[in-house]
C-alpha cells in the first residue's frame, strides 16, 4: 500500500473547457485577407437586401410568379400556363397536387432529420451537457445515423401478437400526421388544400390517431403497451373536447372555419387571437401536449412507469415511425397554434417584406421551443390528475368562454366603432373574465396553490415515537 495515490488534475472537465478557444480569440486570430473578403461579402449581402427591399416597395413583385414572398403565386401561374397550353384538367390537378405534396413531404422529412438534433441539443443545453456533437458538423448527422440504425434493426414481432393489427398502426398513425399539414396557410395563396371546413378537418384528423394508438397497444400483446394505449386513448378522447371548444371560439370570433381566413382576419386587424382569447390559447396548448404525448402530459409513454407505452414492443423502423410521428406532430401543433392564435404567417405588416412562410416557420419553432422547454423542466402528471384537469377545469371554463365569445362576435358584427378599440375591449373583458372564472372555479373545486409546502422540522433531539409526537405537537 503506497502512500502515493494515482492523481489526476482537480477537475479535468473544467480545465478542458477553459482551454477551449473562445469566440473573441477566434476572431482575433483571423488573417487580414479573410477579414477583407468577409467584409466584402457582408457588403454584398446588404446590397442584395437593399435591392430586394426596393423591388418590394416598388410593387413589381406583387402577384408575379417570382414573388418569393408567396410560393403560391408560382404554382398559380404554372396552372394558368398549363391551362393555356390546353393540358387536360386532370394533369394540371395532378401537377399542382404533387408540388404541394412534395412541399409538405420535404418539410416533414427535413424536420425528421433536423428535429431530433434540435431537440437533443436544446435539451442538452438545459441539462448542462453538450448533446450530440460527434457525427458531422455539430453532430448534425446524428439523426441520420440513428435512422440508419433503426432501419437496419430487425423488426421483432412479439409472440402472441396479432400480426395483422401489429403492422397497421405505424402506417395508420403516420397518415394523419401528414394530412394535418394540408389546410395550413404558409402565405396568402400558399395552402395545400384551403378547406372551407379547415378547423373541423384538423379536429377530425387528430381524432384518427386514437384508434391507431389503441390498436398498437392491443396488438402488441404486452401489458405495458395496453396500459399505455388505454391511457393515451382516454386522454386523447378527453382532450379533444377542450381543443374543439377553444377552436370553436376562434371560429366564432373570426366567423370562419377556413384557416387562411382566420390568419387573414388576424392580419387585417393586426391582432393575435391569443390576446383576445388567452384561455382558449392556453387550453389549446395544454390539450395539444396531451394529444401528442409530450411532457408534462406524456403519461401514455411515461418511461419511468410503462417503459415506452403503446409502442414498447415496436422495434426497428416501426418504433421509429412512432417516434417520427411524435416529432412531426410537435411542429404540426406548433403550426396550428401559430395559425390559430399567433397570427399565422402575418406579423403586423412584416409579411409584406419577409416571406410569410419564414414568419410562420419562426413561430412554429418558437412554439416547439416552448415544448422542449417544458419537457426539460417539468415532471409528469398522473392520469387521474390529467383527466380531472380536462373534465373539471378546462371543459367548463372553455364552455363559458364559448358563450362569451358568441356574444362578443355578434357585438363585433354590429358595432361600428374602430375595430382595434372593440377588440381591445374584448381582450380586456376576456382576460378579466378568464382570471375571475379560473379563480372562482378553483375555489369552487377546493383547489388552492400550495404556497408554503411543509418543510422538514429541524431538531436537536433524538428519540422515537414519543419524540415524534413532541415534535408534531409542541407543548
Amino acid at each position, binding site marked *: 500500500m503506497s502512500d502515493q495515490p494515482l492523481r489526476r488534475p482537480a477537475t479535468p472537465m473544467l480545465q478542458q473547457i477553459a482551454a477551449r478557444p473562445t469566440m473573441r480569440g477566434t476572431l482575433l486570430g483571423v488573417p487580414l485577407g479573410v477579414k477583407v473578403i468577409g467584409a466584402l461579402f457582408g457588403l454584398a449581402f446588404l446590397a442584395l437586401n437593399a435591392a430586394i427591399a426596393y423591388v418590394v416597395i416598388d410593387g413589381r413583385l406583387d402577384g408575379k410568379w417570382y414573388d418569393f414572398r408567396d410560393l403560391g403565386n408560382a404554382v398559380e401561374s404554372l396552372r394558368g400556363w398549363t391551362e393555356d397550353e390546353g393540358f387536360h384538367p386532370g394533369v394540371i390537378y395532378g401537377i399542382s397536387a404533387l408540388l404541394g405534396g412534395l412541399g409538405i413531404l420535404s418539410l416533414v422529412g427535413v424536420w425528421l432529420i433536423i428535429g431530433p438534433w434540435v431537440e437533443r441539443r436544446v435539451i442538452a443545453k438545459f441539462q448542462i451537457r453538450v448533446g450530440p456533437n460527434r457525427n458531422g458538423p455539430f453532430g448534425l448527422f446524428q439523426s441520420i445515423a440513428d435512422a440508419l440504425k433503426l432501419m437496419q434493426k430487425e423488426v421483432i414481432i412479439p409472440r402472441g401478437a396479432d400480426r395483422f393489427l401489429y403492422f397497421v398502426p405505424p402506417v395508420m398513425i403516420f397518415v394523419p400526421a401528414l394530412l394535418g399539414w394540408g389546410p395550413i396557410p404558409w402565405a396568402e395563396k400558399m395552402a395545400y388544400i384551403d378547406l*372551407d*371546413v379547415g378547423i*373541423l378537418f384538423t*379536429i377530425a384528423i387528430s381524432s384518427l390517431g*386514437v384508434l391507431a394508438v389503441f390498436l398498437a397497444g392491443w396488438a402488441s400483446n404486452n401489458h405495458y403497451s395496453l396500459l399505455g394505449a388505454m391511457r393515451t386513448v382516454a386522454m386523447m*378522447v378527453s382532450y379533444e373536447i377542450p381543443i374543439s371548444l377553444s377552436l370553436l371560439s376562434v371560429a366564432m370570433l373570426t366567423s370562419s372555419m377556413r384557416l387562411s381566413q382566420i390568419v387573414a382576419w388576424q392580419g387585417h386587424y393586426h391582432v393575435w387571437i391569443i390576446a383576445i382569447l388567452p384561455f382558449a390559447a392556453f387550453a389549446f396548448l395544454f390539450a395539444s401536449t396531451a394529444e401528442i404525448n409530450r411532457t408534462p402530459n406524456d403519461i401514455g409513454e411515461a418511461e419511468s412507469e410503462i417503459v415506452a407505452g403503446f409502442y414498447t414492443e415496436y422495434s426497428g423502423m416501426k418504433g421509429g415511425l412512432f417516434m417520427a410521428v411524435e416529432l412531426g406532430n410537435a411542429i404540426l401543433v406548433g403550426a396550428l397554434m401559430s395559425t390559430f392564435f399567433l397570427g399565422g404567417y402575418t406579423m403586423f405588416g412584416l409579411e409584406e417584406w419577409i416571406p410569410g412562410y419564414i414568419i410562420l416557420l419562426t413561430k412554429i419553432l418558437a412554439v416547439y421551443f416552448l415544448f422542449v422547454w417544458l419537457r426539460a423542466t417539468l415532471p409528469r402528471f398522473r392520469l387521474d390528475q390529467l383527466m380531472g384537469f380536462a373534465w373539471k377545469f378546462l371543459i367548463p371554463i372553455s364552455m363559458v368562454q364559448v358563450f362569451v365569445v358568441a356574444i362578443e362576435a355578434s357585438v363585433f358584427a354590429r358595432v361600428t366603432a374602430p375595430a382595434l378599440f372593440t377588440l381591445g375591449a374584448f381582450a380586456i373583458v376576456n382576460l378579466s373574465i378568464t382570471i375571475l372564472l379560473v379563480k372562482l372555479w378553483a375555489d369552487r373545486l377546493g383547489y388552492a396553490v400550495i404556497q408554503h409546502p411543509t418543510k422538514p422540522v429541524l431538531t436537536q433531539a433524538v428519540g422515537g415515537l414519543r419524540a415524534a409526537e413532541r415534535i408534531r405537537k409542541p407543548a
Partner: protein
Amino acid sequence: MDSPGIIVAFWLLSGITVLSALLVFVARNLLHALAFLVLSFLGMAGLFMTLSADFIAVAQILIYAGSISVLMVFAVMLTPLASRNNGNSLYVIPALMGGAGIAGLVGAVAMETDWAEHSGEALKAADFPSTVPVIGDLLLGRYVLAFEIASVLLFIALLGAILLVHERPEDERSAGQQGEAQ
C-alpha cells in the same frame, strides 16, 4: 360528371368501402372487424367528398371514424370476459338472403328508375363553393325545431348512457346482488 379524377375516385372509394364492409362481416376477430369498419367509414367519407359534401365528409370522419369507433373500442375492452369472437349466429342464411334481397331491390330500383337528375352543366351549377353556411342556415332556419330536438336527444342519450353504466357504490351493489339472489 366529367372530371376523370372523380370517376377514378368513385370506383376506388366505393371498392374500398364495399370490400371493407364485407370484411367486417368475414373477419373472425372483433377488433379486426373494427379496423375494417373504420376503413369503410373512411371510404364512405371519401365518397361524400366526391359528392362535394366537404362538411359532411369531415363530420363523418370526426364522428364515425374518430368517435364511434373509439366508443366501440371501449365497449370491447369493458367486456373483457366476453369473447372477442366475431362469430355468426344461426340466422346467417336468412340474413344473407335478406341482405342480398335488399341490395338487389335497391340496385334494381336504382337502375330501372329514370331519375330526374342533373348532368353536365346543370350538375356543375349544383357545385357549391361553400356548404357550411347553407347547412347552418337550414339547421337554424327551416329545421330549427328538429335541430333543437336533436340536441335534446343527444343530451338525453348522454344522461341515459351515464345512468346505465353508472356503478352503484359498493354497499348498495352488494345489497342489490343479495336481493337478486333471493
